[in-house]
């Protein structure tokens, strides 16, 4: 495969000026024809390997990362499913039931997920107040699911989650995200919904999956209308 100057610059992640200088100095394998420089991709890759230079293509080959879009929250909630009258008197019991309800791929080790959730609860309760808890593993793990999912469980009877405000929890959102970025995104969207007084009172008497998802979709439209509220642009996290 033949690359031109611009493509080679992109592959090596350096400016074209640098490539031109390297050609002049004879540092890079190049061919000339009709007054133009071109590169044989194989040669260039071999050269980069021997010089330990990172190829930009390596980056492209890694599986594409999940990018949340405007309807991400209610889609994730649909994937996770909504369940009512989930049994349990203790935090452990509730979580175990929630994990067993969660629609995970068959290869996932549910025991391991359970352990991760308990570890997180030990560090600090995920009960965020007003009777809501958002249990999640300590680290975002892509192995649980490549696509984020949120399993909503309305509890049969409120459970003491050691929440910040001490109010017993009546609903939990079990959140599994492949990346930190996605996790923060959902946390931010969900907390926006939960801040809303009417949504909270709706949540307390909600009784059907479609009802809840409909409401979430409405809320999300509202957020998307209000651009700038969320750090949704790529590169918002990390970087200097």
């Amino acid at each position, binding site marked *: 495969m033949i690359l031109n100057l611009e493509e080679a610059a992109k592959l090596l992640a*350096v*400016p074209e*000026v*640098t490539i031109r*200088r*390297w*050609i*002049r*100095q*004879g*540092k*890079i394998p190049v061919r*000339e024809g009709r007054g133009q420089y071109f590169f044989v991709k194989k040669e260039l890759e071999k050269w980069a390997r*021997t*010089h*330990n*230079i990172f190829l930009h293509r390596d980056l492209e080959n890694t599986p594409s990362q999940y990018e949340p879009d405007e309807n991400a929250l209610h889609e994730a909630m649909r994937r996770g499913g909504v369940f009512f009258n989930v049994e349990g008197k203790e935090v452990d019991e509730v979580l175990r039931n929630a994990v067993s309800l969660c629609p995970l791929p068959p290869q996932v080790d549910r025991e391991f997920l359970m352990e991760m959730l308990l570890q997180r609860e030990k560090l600090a309760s995920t009960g965020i107040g007003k009777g809501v808890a958002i249990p999640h593993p300590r680290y975002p793990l892509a192995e649980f699911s490549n696509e984020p999912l949120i399993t909503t469980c309305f509890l049969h009877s409120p459970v003491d989650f050691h929440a910040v405000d001490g109010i017993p929890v009546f609903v939990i959102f079990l959140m599994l995200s492949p990346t930190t970025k996605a996790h923060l995104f959902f946390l931010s969207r969900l907390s926006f919904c939960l801040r809303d007084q009417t949504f909270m009172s709706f949540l307390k008497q909600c009784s059907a999956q479609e009802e809840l998802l409909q409401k979430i979709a409405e809320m999300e439209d509202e957020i998307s209308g209000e651009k*700038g509220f969320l*750090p949704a*642009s790529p*590169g*918002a996290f*990390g*970087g*200097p």
Partner: protein
Amino acid sequence: MRRLFLSLHERLQLIIIASFVGVCGGLASVALNRSLSAVSTALQPHTGHWYGFLFPACGAALSAIFLNHVVKDIGGHGVPEVIYAISRRGGLLRLRSSVSRLVSCLLTIASGGSAGPEAPVVISGGSIGSNIASFFRLKDRHRIVIVGCGAAAAIASIFNAPVAGTIFALEAILGEWTPINLIPIAISSVVGTEVSRILQGNQIPFQNRVFPISMIDLVACLGLAGLTALGSVTLTRMLKVVRDKSNTLLPYAWVRAGLGGLLVGLIGLTFSGVLGEGYEVIRVIIEQQYSPGLLIIGLMIVAKITATSLTIGSGGSGGIFAPCLVIGSFTGLFYQRILLDLFPSVSWAGEGYFALLGMAGVISSVLQAPLTGIFLIVEITGSYQVLISVVLVSMVSATISHLFEPFSIYHQELIAQGELLRPRTDRRILSELNMVELLEEDCHVVHPEMRLKDLVATVQRTHRNYFPVEDSKTGEFLGMIHLDDIRSYLFNPYLYNTVLVEELMDREVPRVSLEDDLMKVFELFDKTHSWSLPVVQNRRFLGLISKATILDHYRKELMVQEEI
């Protein structure tokens, strides 16, 4: 033809070009050698006359006029130019340099100036190599090697010393030893030597006989090393003084050179041995037939040092090799005479032996290239028997003189100008990187009349910590906002509508321009403790330059330089 050649493997290309350059370098040195002896013979009958002392003056002045006005090339001993071309210009040398130095050197030396034919041959060989390399469209990295080949061939053929030529090119000219350098240079050295042997016969310049070396001679060598170090430091300093003084006192190059030549001629009236390259004198000394006493020898050392400084320092064209050998042999002789006087009962190894060691010591110290000194002496005298003593004197003498004059005579000027850029050094990499390559253009420009609220929104949208402020009408760069400086206001919503960007920005932020040297930029980074600096050209903001990006490029540059 050229296309066929270019399809060969790069090392094979280099080897073929190197042998070709070797032939040319050899021819250049033979040509200079022949014409030197021809002109000297022609002038011989006249040197005895009263006007003989004017010859060096005329020769030097003519050579300066020739260089500065006829071919418009700069004077000096030539080798620093080759090194400069290698470190700064990718080995590019002008074609005219291949001939101009030979002519000017001929004028200087044949008329009696105290200098050697080596440096002109080095620049000539280097320039031939450079132009051949350019003809074959070699890249900088390979052109540098070929310039080294030219220099090696020149030295190898003029001294009939292939190993010394190779080592000189690596040690003094290129400053790095890699397989890709070594092979072509060695080949070109051998070819150059062979050319001169075919044309001039295989003569060892200073054939000597076998010396009876004992343990005591080896011990005595150490004393000689001290003396040669003294001699070379004196020569180096004196050369510097003459050059600086003559440059400031006399504006015209030909007047400088002429006056220098005149003084040399006057010295030559009393000490005729200092004139010319002086190989005859060395031959006499090594054959142990130099009869004058200790005092005269001492004076000869001083006279030769003075004459050399005057010739080369005043702008005459010529090398330092031959004078070093002369000074060295006199120093050795001087030391041997002292030993004889102090310990008359010991049977010393002989005058020739000490003269050899003296030459090795002075050459190694002046050039700060001990290996070149060692192999040159061993090869031009054809005696491997003295190797141990030569190594000893060269190393000790080079070490001692290093304490006083840390840089070789070739590198001093370049170092003073900050232009000696050895491969793989920090300076070299910084000089190669260009500001344009490092410029980060993905910046978010803000305007002075924006409110803090808008700024916060901008901060949210970008991943930058620095925000350039531009006048919204004229586009003029006004200042910078650094996130760290405004962090405390960011979370204060009461200020969102009341504070303007204008009030937050740093107007006195240090700025750099595209032409700035990276060394300077780094000094500024260190001084201001900042991570990013704005690049401003004609009062317009072009982009940011940041330490993080520089590190990225710097590392790549280092990795690319690795030879595999």
